[in-house]
């Protein structure tokens, strides 16, 4: 890769000084070693230190730098700059209140995550050693436990946009199924009760935007389908 200049259109809003949000046209010259969108944002920030965004691990495992990139949610650290059409349009994740620039208020997202009781429930006295689980039983958790809570999926979901206070959202539901699928967890029925509601689970209309944007290639729609199956099965 060579030196090149990249054009951006970035959503800017600082409630301390801006009456309203606006889109800023800005460009930056990249070094040959800059490959990911996050590299470019860091370079941009060296030029204008007022651009605000979250970032941490820069390798797609902490979930900090989720944003809307050319109209699609993704992680800046995993997105190749040269794959993006210019000007690169960056907006905060849709559907959540903006605090500043690309930083959104994730309270509602985490509230939904917390609402599914995201922890193992097993009231048996813990044995001296590990609880046993076969490799096959453990495999049931693959594609579920890897969620990084970046919110790309939930904020790409129209049902979540309309009812962020009532619909758990793809990320929360994926995590709910992660515990239902765990052979060590004893609260399946309680967990299903918790979701048996026209909004909490059933606002998912399987349009699969979540699957399309998940930076970890997880499939919340499939997990939601499995929860729905369990609901049906226990109803009959």
């Amino acid at each position, binding site marked *: 890769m060579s030196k090149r200049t990249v054009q951006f259109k970035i959503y800017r809003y600082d409630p301390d000084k801006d009456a309203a949000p606006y889109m800023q046209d800005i460009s930056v010259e990249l070094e040959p070693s800059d490959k990911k969108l996050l590299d470019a944002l860091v370079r941009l920030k060296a030029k204008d230190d007022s651009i605000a965004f979250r970032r*941490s691990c820069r390798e797609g495992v902490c979930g*900090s730098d989720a944003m809307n990139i050319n109209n699609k949610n993704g992680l800046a650290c995993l997105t190749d700059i040269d794959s993006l059409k210019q000007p690169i349009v960056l907006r905060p994740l849709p559907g959540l209140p903006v605090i500043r620039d690309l930083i959104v208020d994730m309270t509602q997202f985490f509230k939904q995550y917390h609402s599914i009781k995201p922890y193992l429930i097993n009231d048996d006295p813990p044995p001296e050693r590990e609880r046993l689980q076969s490799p096959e039983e453990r495999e049931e958790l693959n594609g579920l436990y*890897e969620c990084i809570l970046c919110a790309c999926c939930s904020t790409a979901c129209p049902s979540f946009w309309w009812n962020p206070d009532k619909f758990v959202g793809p990320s929360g539901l994926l995590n709910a199924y992660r515990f239902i699928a765990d052979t060590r967890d004893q609260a399946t029925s309680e967990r299903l009760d918790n979701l048996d509601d026209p909004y909490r689970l059933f606002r998912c209309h399987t349009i699969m935007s979540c699957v399309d944007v998940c930076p970890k290639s997880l499939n919340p729609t499939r997990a939601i389908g499995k929860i729905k199956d369990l609901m049906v099965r226990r109803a009959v």
Partner: protein
Amino acid sequence: MSNKVTKRTFDAVIVGAGGAGLRAALQLSEAGLKTAVLSKVFPTRSHTVAAQGGVAASLGNTTEDNWHWHMYDTVKGSDWLGDQDSIEFMVRKANEVVVELEHYGMPFDRTDNGKIYQRPFGGHSQNYGKSPVMRSCAAADRTGHAMLHALYQRNVRAHTQFFVEWMALDLLRDASGNVLGVTALELETGEVSIFHAKATIFATGGSGRIYYSSTNAFINTGDGVGMAARAGIPLEDMEFWQFHPTGVAGAGVLITEGVRGEGGILRNGGGERFMERYAPNLKDLASRDVVSRSMVTEINEGRGCGPDKDHVMLDITHLSPEVIMKRLPGIREISIRFAGVDPIKAPIPVVPTCHYQMGGIPTNYKGQVVVPKFGNADTPVPGFYAAGECACASVHGANRLGTNSLLDLLVFGKAAGESVVDDFRAGNLELKPLPEDVADRTLARLDRLETQRDGSSVNDVRLAMQRTMQKHAGVFRFKDLLKEGVEKILKVAGDARYTQIGDKSKVWNTARQEALELDNLIEVAKATMVSAEARKESRGAHVRDDAVDTPEHPNGRDDTNWLKHTLWFSADNHLEYKPVRLKPMSSDVEPIALAKRTY
């Protein structure tokens, strides 16, 4: 900047919500103490999340194992600089804390009989160095992620009170040196609060961002270490930094040692498995410092790979795709994304990359912060505790073994939490009055940033620091470069006192945050360079050109003069030393006797 400072009062305040902070928090929440956990990022964004290969425990699920062997490996790995009481404490607690995690719901991989899956790792052996052992308890190659989420989830269950996206700014002490809590900045509003507490636990992680090339996250800015140093707490053994053998060349992203644990091989430009020459016994699974130096030697002697011969290759093409997909799926993803190669088909280009801070805030094995006072090198500071990478217990000494860091944060996070609970219940902790001027240092730092004119840019100063550290305190160290490095880093530290920011907003001001973080990084950088220059021997990760292998000083190690811990004091940039605790915790445990380190 408003001078109005809100005061909040707690039994305990924990700074940091990575593995150590969350483990400590559980202890306090479950004991019913009124606890505040401050984190500048949402807890699951903490850097524990990036740990890959596993956590050490001598469960013996696949191969025979016991804590005596683990203790020997850890002492030897530390090049005998680790304190043997702390090491004994850690390895004997390992099974307990790992099994607890499993009970919390951590999704460990499993053996065929349903137990926790364990894989081999560098420097871990059976029978005191005889052959590799399967000791690393793993959740695929996402162990840190699985662990951090399980710990966060357990804290949700325990109703732990988090202050998310609050950055601690300064450690508060009174005239007698008692610790009273911290000042902290709420990122969203820019407001400053005093967190007044009977006990303060630092679990702020490492500071790897002092180097230009690092596996560490952006947030690893040594906040606790810097705060402690500014408040007069010495820093221990800061010359010892681990360079992980396998960072992706160019990108710096970590490739776990678990890749070699699963059978991966390092090859030079000629395709040779060069580790056979440097470590005939454990080969690619020798200790990290040994492997990193071997790699740099290969590169320096012209046997590197690529057009510039500036890296070596990590080869797993001989492993079956099934093993790679099952045990190393995250590594495959990282290789494809950051190195542009699918490791099933082609080897991964790697170079040693700054990874872990062995030194830190001095503690004993109970997690109490200790300083030289009243003629005792290890006198606890009332009200102050630390655990995890920011602390130095010291279990890693001059070189840490892979998988011992996740163990460290579990064992000492829990120990620090238990110490606070014990001290609280024994009535040893009280809410000491806040002096009038207790927040002045913090307010002065913020005011300076508000008003600084003609200063230097945060980015420029940070870059100068990172370049200096990379060049002058790297994998191999040179007498002249270290000397020059001290002068350079002190000059950079001078510039850091005059950083200037353009952004003056109250709301989520990341420019201000980065300037405040730089104040912490610079303390760590100074401590590292000054301590390294002064240590005139080679030991573990600190290897100098003027301390080479001789019969009198095997591997350049000088136990007569340097079997001691460094203590660096920020106020006047001076050094003191304290003895290594060579006696194990229990009287019936034999000390691991000094010996030359070979693998």
